């Protein structure tokens, strides 16, 4: 199966990041159509499309849109989550750099549908290029009257779009932590339903807030332009439309590939030029947080939410990482664990202490000091984090480790028994960390 270019159709068009070119290619037509419709009709169109959130969880987008109160007794906010921090995922970055107007248009449609007066796009701090591109697009959209007072002549549609950059925290991609950060607080998650109202009722500054991923918003102009029913013809029944997969690792042509939902995983690897440097060993299909999928299980797995779930992994954010057969899984997991230990915000005990402990154990194993009990210990620590942490970061830290033990227990055993890598010379030792004991108090 080939690519199905919808969002990325014009990605190589010169000047598509500028408003004239974008308009010439049908840009802002979706917004025009939306503004000509009743607000509820826009939401119904999104409902008909079957669009599910592209940030990782796959929650039906229209339910969020429709849950925003219809009255305006409080201000409404729209947030675009552009804090793309999931290792292996780089689709939002490309969308923002190359097709910023598509994102802006999607946000504008959402703002119209939910009667928001302010929209924020929270961009990962490292994405300077993307932020510049978005900022230029926002400026142009203001000039053309797609944002601001009385958008497209509709006096009852006024909204402002603010670009906000993060300060370098993976956790701030978690929607409640993102809102904490946006409100100027420490980037830590907030209480969620049923402990607190949903963001659509009480989100940013206690007001109804719609928050979606960049790719989700980018889908919306196409849905409005061509109709939700048309969009739903793509993909599978449960997962409609297209999905941008960021393919990286041991493939010939890493990059973003847009495919219809339900495309076989192995087709995606072929699109990316196939596995290089050896035979396929494993795939992490949806970003570093999702369970690893060994090669022998890849056949039959399709790129949609249901099929991935059935295979014991997740489509996640579409960060597809491919590993050839000389990859050391334990070292891979050590690197993953290092990421989560570094990015844990520290708020809750399981994640704060557990992620560091996992890393310490994996450090010891890959330094040749593994013990026979370590594999069970790692599983047990994962159990103590999974489902008990404050937010999903803890779960995301536990799942990959647990899956790797399930599928590659023999590699752990090899490390523990022999003190060296099962892949032999192909093993690349990790970059030494700074001395973890070199903690000093700021004012000692």
């Amino acid at each position, binding site marked *: 199966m080939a690519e199905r270019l919808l969002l990325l159709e014009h990605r190589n068009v010169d000047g598509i990041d500028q408003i004239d070119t974008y308009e010439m290619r049908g840009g802002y037509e979706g917004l025009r159509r939306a503004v000509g419709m009743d607000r509820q009709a826009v939401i119904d169109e999104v409902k008909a499309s079957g669009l599910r959130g592209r940030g990782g969880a796959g929650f039906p987008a229209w339910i969020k849109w429709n849950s925003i109160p219809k009255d305006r007794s409080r201000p409404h906010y729209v947030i675009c989550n552009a804090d793309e921090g999931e290792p292996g995922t780089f689709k939002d970055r490309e969308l923002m750099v190359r097709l910023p107007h598509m994102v802006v248009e999607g946000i504008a449609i959402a703002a119209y549908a939910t009667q928001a007066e302010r929209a924020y796009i929270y961009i990962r701090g490292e994405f300077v290029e993307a932020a510049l591109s978005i900022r230029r697009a926002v400026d142009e959209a203001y000039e053309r009257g797609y944002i601001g007072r009385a958008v497209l002549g509709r006096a009852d549609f006024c909204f402002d779009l603010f670009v906000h950059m993060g300060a370098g925290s993976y*956790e701030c991609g978690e929607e409640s932590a993102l809102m904490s950060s946006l409100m100027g607080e420490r980037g830590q998650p907030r209480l969620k339903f049923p402990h607190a109202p949903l963001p659509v009722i009480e989100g940013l500054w206690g007001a109804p807030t719609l928050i979606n991923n960049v790719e989700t918003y980018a889908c919306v102009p196409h849905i409005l332009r061509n109709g939700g029913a048309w969009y739903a013809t793509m993909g599978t029944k449960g997962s409609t439309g297209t999905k941008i997969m960021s393919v990286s690792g041991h493939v010939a042509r890493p990059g973003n590939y847009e495919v219809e939902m339900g495309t076989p995983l192995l087709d995606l690897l072929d699109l990316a030029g196939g596995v290089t440097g050896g035979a396929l060993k494993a795939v992490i299909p949806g970003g570093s947080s999702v369970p690893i999928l060994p090669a022998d299980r890849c056949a039959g797995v399709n790129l949609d939410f249901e099929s991935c779930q059935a295979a014991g992994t997740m489509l996640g954010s579409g960060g597809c990482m491919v590993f050839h057969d000389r990859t050391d899984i334990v070292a891979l997991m050590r690197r993953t664990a290092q990421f989560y230990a570094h*990015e844990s915000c*520290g708020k809750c005990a399981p994640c704060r*202490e557990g992620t560091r402990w996992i890393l310490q154990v994996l450090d010891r194993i890959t330094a040749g000091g593994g013990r026979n009990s370590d594999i069970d210990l790692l599983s047990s620590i994962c159990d103590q984090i999974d489902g*008990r942490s404050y937010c999903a970061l803890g779960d995301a830290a536990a799942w990959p480790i647990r899956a790797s033990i399930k599928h590659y227990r023999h590699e752990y055993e090899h490390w523990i028994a022999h003190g060296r890598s099962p892949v032999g010379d192909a093993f690349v030792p990790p970059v030494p960390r700074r001395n973890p*004991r070199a903690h000093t108090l700021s004012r000692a």
Partner: protein
Amino acid sequence: MSQASMVNIRINGTPLQVPMGEKVIESARRIGVDIPFFCYHPRLSAEAGANCRMCLVEAGFVGADGSVRMMPKPQTSCSLPASEGLVIETETPLVVEARRGVLELLLINHPLDCPICDRGGECPLQNNTLHYGPRTSRFVEEKRHFPKAHPLSEHVVFDRERCIHCARCTRFTSDISGDSQLGFLKRGADMEVNTFGASAYESRFSGNVIELCPVGALLSRDYRFRGRPWDLLTQESICTRCSNGCNIKIDHRAGRLVRVSARLNEAVNEEWTCDRGKFGMGYVNAGNRALRPLLRGEEGLREARWEEAMEEVARRLREADGAAAGVGGASLPNEDLYVWQRLWREAVGSRHLDHRMGPRFEPVAEDPIAWLAHHSMGMSIADLERARAILVIGSDLVDEQPIVFLRVRKAWRTCGTRVVELRPAASGSDAGSGHVRDFAALSARYRPGSEAALVRGILAAMGEEALLGSSASDALRTAMQGWTPERAAEECDLAGETIRAAARLLAPDGLAVIAGRELTHQAHAPQALAVLDDLLAITASAGNLAVPVGEVNAQGAMDLGILPDIGPAYTKLDRSGNSAQRILEAAGRGEVPVLWLMGVDLLNAFHDRALADRALRRCPFVVYAGHFLDETAARAHVVLPLQTSVERDGSFTSCERRVQRFQRAFQVSPEVRPGWLVCGDLAARLGVPMRYATARDIQTEIARTVPIYAECTPAALGDHGVRWALPSDSGPAAGASERPAGRAEA
């Protein structure tokens, strides 16, 4: 919570009804189900909590068909609100395993130096580990190491290794004290509690974080390494460092006060203390305590036997023949004051008695109740929560009345009360955070002395903008006295708009006014307070004027008649005596044969030090009855050492007229006596025997003979005291109105 709708929930199979939205951890407590926790605290925000994950339970909902759907993950019961059909299981294998796991994780980097930890023996982490924790640790890596004693403030030391990051201390500083001094730095396993830029932790309430800390991470400098909790004896007591009447617990060992902690009293301090109280009770064991009677001889003060000293004082009092004078008493318990004034009026036959240290000494007897309204609190501390607006005028409240400040802040934070702060320009230093101005809707500085004009201007603005009901218009016109906001603004050196804004914030009703020292210590205070009375009357809030006294028992001294022209319970005396000012002036002229100083360091307490000095020099016989060998005691002719509240039984009356008792914790020296015993002994020597065997006898007599204290019997005082009510308490005061007149509230 009576209005809140009730919902049906089920905990471990037990059905119960609880208010909707109540946290499940509280609901479980109702039926005796214990859920362990570290970070949860009902007075701290839940938003920043739910982080220790110790209180995880399984939760589910009863569906429409009666089946129960459990949620896939365990939920934190400290943040889960009760709702209809909620099903909670607290003892499932999953929950037991989750608690065990959380404790293992909390302990992997905890130093487990319990044998030398101050918290050992009263540590939630120890206790929960014993009941719910793993038997052993599987952690073989190196623990985190940090310097053990990081000095956060002059009172608080931080042991970072022990911290479990529960955010109780950080939430206290942002939610309760409001100074936001503590926060988290860094993230993940490196996260640490610290101050911004590692500056000193400056707060008037820093001691509370020591008590809030569920481990031994935040420690008191005074108490660190000084004892084990199981070796300490605890006595419930009352703080003496100001008039707010904080309920405290005194931990002592071998005749020494070791530490002070807060005791719960919802009506007064809730569960907080200020640093002045928590770290300021050490005076009990101070080196300058007077521990033996002293008599002035040829070579200055020498130690004497009680008998000798008392006989000398009795002789002098006899010779003085009614010309003796007494000053002080505001720091001593009610029992001492009652017996002292009896001694003075019945045995010595003197009318010269005054507790006031100045600068104001107005006559009281003309209208004692009106006078009292300008020298006491019209409403209770807890009533502040029911005010719709609070005006703090002429006061750095957090410094003057720390616990009243916390209540004002709570009213603002939890009840949405509007707070206006007006203070004279160039008033004392109030640098740093954690003041009323930090949360006041309006904070302004007026020209010193212009309070009356300012309040008239506010009234005028209320009139101009028609902020009050029409019924108030006549009274308003009278009270405005031709003032306009602009004229007042000029007088007060403020913008007219500021005065109008204040008027809008303070109207229309439910107003409470707190007037502080910066106003009440001025000569024009009576006029300014009268205008504030007008403001309160016009906003249908009459009686809601709070002029909290300063010293611990100044209120009791007023109530029990330590004043020249009234007796106990504000009864007029036939002939009035001299005020403290007059007494000292007379003493300065050598006209006072015996000057009795009751627990007061006159030189440092009296507003006119030169006059005090002259009085001490010229008076032929100065009796100093008190706790310390201070500057004044050194000038006395006889020093009678008195017991502090820690060494004896008694009661104090707090600034909100709450009579609270305390009991003896320990003895400092057998040679130190309670004031009532000394006064009673002297009275007997002067031929008027007073048969009191214990402080309780006196409490009983006070309740019998002093009408306003009629309900303050020893039995009724209990643990939380009794507040005696003013006749005006029945007025239309906001909130205070539910109480019938003349009745005390427990």
